[in-house]
């Protein structure tokens, strides 16, 4: 397991297999994971708490448009930028988290079934997967949005999830292929366990490290994707504050009132950096575990 020098600081309890520390515990020793986790948690706390502390309402007019009133000035309708930023994270966070969860669940199911089923089943699933993979994620979302008058939050969650699923499936299949031929899986099969039980109880628990890393990465991409869709003008509620959409609404005034654009951009940037650092920390743990 650990041919590298580092993680021997905990007293190694020998013999019994489950004594190995959990993925999260190992990840906590990574500096980039803890930094990323701290940034992410701070931002999540900000998104949840900030609406109660915002000096102005979400759609309240605080002064003339693009003025310097207030801490970060006002936006194109004269709404307070700071308050808009404080309100605007909720939809991105909710859609990103649920979209990522959906994409992970779908992708893992597809990938593991393909790996465990094998044969032509595997071939068909992965071929269909290739088709969806030949779409950049944002393109898949845009194609579907063409025929829809006004997207709802559910549609966006579905789009994010479905566009993640094939990418997750590819990874999950690769990881699962290395597990389904191991002795404990064959033993479980020989004992006459049901296929679903073998997958749930034997295969999945052994995949958690790489899947967690992938989940973190997908969360980063989800935030970017939803931000980009908001920026392109596709959001669930055009009236509500939304970081991506704020960029779109105010970008013409970037030279006169830069904060109306820069504030949401910087929040998204910090959010993405946080989740990405976290994902990379887990990925390093996952790799060491594999070798």
């Amino acid at each position: 397991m650990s041919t590298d020098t580092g993680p021997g600081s905990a007293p190694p309890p020998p013999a019994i297999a489950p004594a190995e520390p959990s993925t999260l515990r190992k990840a906590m020793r990574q500096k980039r994971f803890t930094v990323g986790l701290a940034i992410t948690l701070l931002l999540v706390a900000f998104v949840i708490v900030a609406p109660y502390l915002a000096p102005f309402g979400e759609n309240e007019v605080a002064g003339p448009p693009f003025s310097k009133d207030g801490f970060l000035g006002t936006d194109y309708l004269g709404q307070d930028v700071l308050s808009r930023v404080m309100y605007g994270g909720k939809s991105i966070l909710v859609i990103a988290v649920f979209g990522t969860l959906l994409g992970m669940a779908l992708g893992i199911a597809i990938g593991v079934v393909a790996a465990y089923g094998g044969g032509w089943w595997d071939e068909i699933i992965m071929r269909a997967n290739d088709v969806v993979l030949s779409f950049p994620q944002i393109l898949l979302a845009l194609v579907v949005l063409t025929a829809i008058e006004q997207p709802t939050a559910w549609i966006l969650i579905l789009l994010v999830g479905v566009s993640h699923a094939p990418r997750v499936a590819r990874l999950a299949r690769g990881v699962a292929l290395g597990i389904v031929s191991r002795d404990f899986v064959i033993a479980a099969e020989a004992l006459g366990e049901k296929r679903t039980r073998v997958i749930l109880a034997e295969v999945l628990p052994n995949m958690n490290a790489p899947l967690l890393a992938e989940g973190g990465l997908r969360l980063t991409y989800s935030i970017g994707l939803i931000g980009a869709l908001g920026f392109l003008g596709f959001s669930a509620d055009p009236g509500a504050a939304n970081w991506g959409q704020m960029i779109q609404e105010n970008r013409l005034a970037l030279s006169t009132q830069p904060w109306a654009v820069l504030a949401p951009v910087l929040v998204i940037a910090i959010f993405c950096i946080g989740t990405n650092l976290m994902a990379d920390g887990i990925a390093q743990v996952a790799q060491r575990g594999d070798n």
Partner: protein
Amino acid sequence: MTDVATLLPDPPEEVAPPRRQHGAAAWAVWLARRLGLAVLTLWLVSVLVFLATAALGDPVRAILGRDYNSNPGRVAQLEELLNADQSIVSRYFDWLGGLLTGDLGVSLANQRPVSELISANVVNTLVLVLLSAVLMIPLAFAIAMISAHYRRKRPDTVIQTILLAMAGLPEFVIGVLLIALLATTVFKVFPAVTISSPTGHPWDNPDAMVLPTLTLVLAVAPYVSRIVRASLLEVIDSDYVELARLKGIPEKVVMRKHALLNAIVPGIQVIALQLAWLAGGVVVVETLFSYPGVGLQLVDSVRNHDVPMVQALSMIIAGVYVVVNVVADVLSILLTPRARTAISS
């Protein structure tokens, strides 16, 4: 150990060595199989595009919005244009037939042929993507080589931390920050918007190309660079590089001949993925800079619910992706002696 090995793309599909065939014949079989798969993928993509745009929602209702109930004449006219009275299957085959013969249909927004509307933009986007790729590839390789040279030392750590932070940033974040830095707020060096006459090209005014290109380069280079570094390190640790050193070959030659050449193949796969990814990135970047390419046009068409335009544009983007992948697979087989012999022996 490598940092980003989990991000490495799969190696080109393992091909079972065909028996009793030699050289050219085996190559032809392999190539035919690969092209067949590409065509199959494109066909399935066309089904997906058509279903998503024509069957998932009601485009006529989406186009007219609130007017849907008050304007039955316009509804009938649009349904006529979209052949809504026919079954979905026959509409699909009509559309596919048109696509294969080069007839992309008529735009709903201004009743002009789609092919006429998009041809100039396709060229503009190709120039933007190729220019970004030409700048991005050497940059990413150079950074990776510097980083691998200083492995585990300070410069490597600093470079890797910066790259890791940048790799997570969406394109529009990079683009807006660049605009604020170089076009509006801090310095005013480059124009923030591409303005070109309907007959001219955006590169008639080279200044306007700088920011869109730079945004794409900065959005993609960190990822590529991290992967190239990882595969470089893997090669440097390999037995044959060790052997070359032990034979007393100068370090520079070892790096160039033994290490770099072997690190190029995974690099090609990554570049192919990234080129395809650029095809998605242009959607956002072109909108941000109002660059007259297919991405901007796609976003406009989606906003207008212009179904024939969206269908044509998304088929073009997906087509580019499929072609790039085939080329990358062929190139990596040609450059990997092991895979080369597996096919032709």
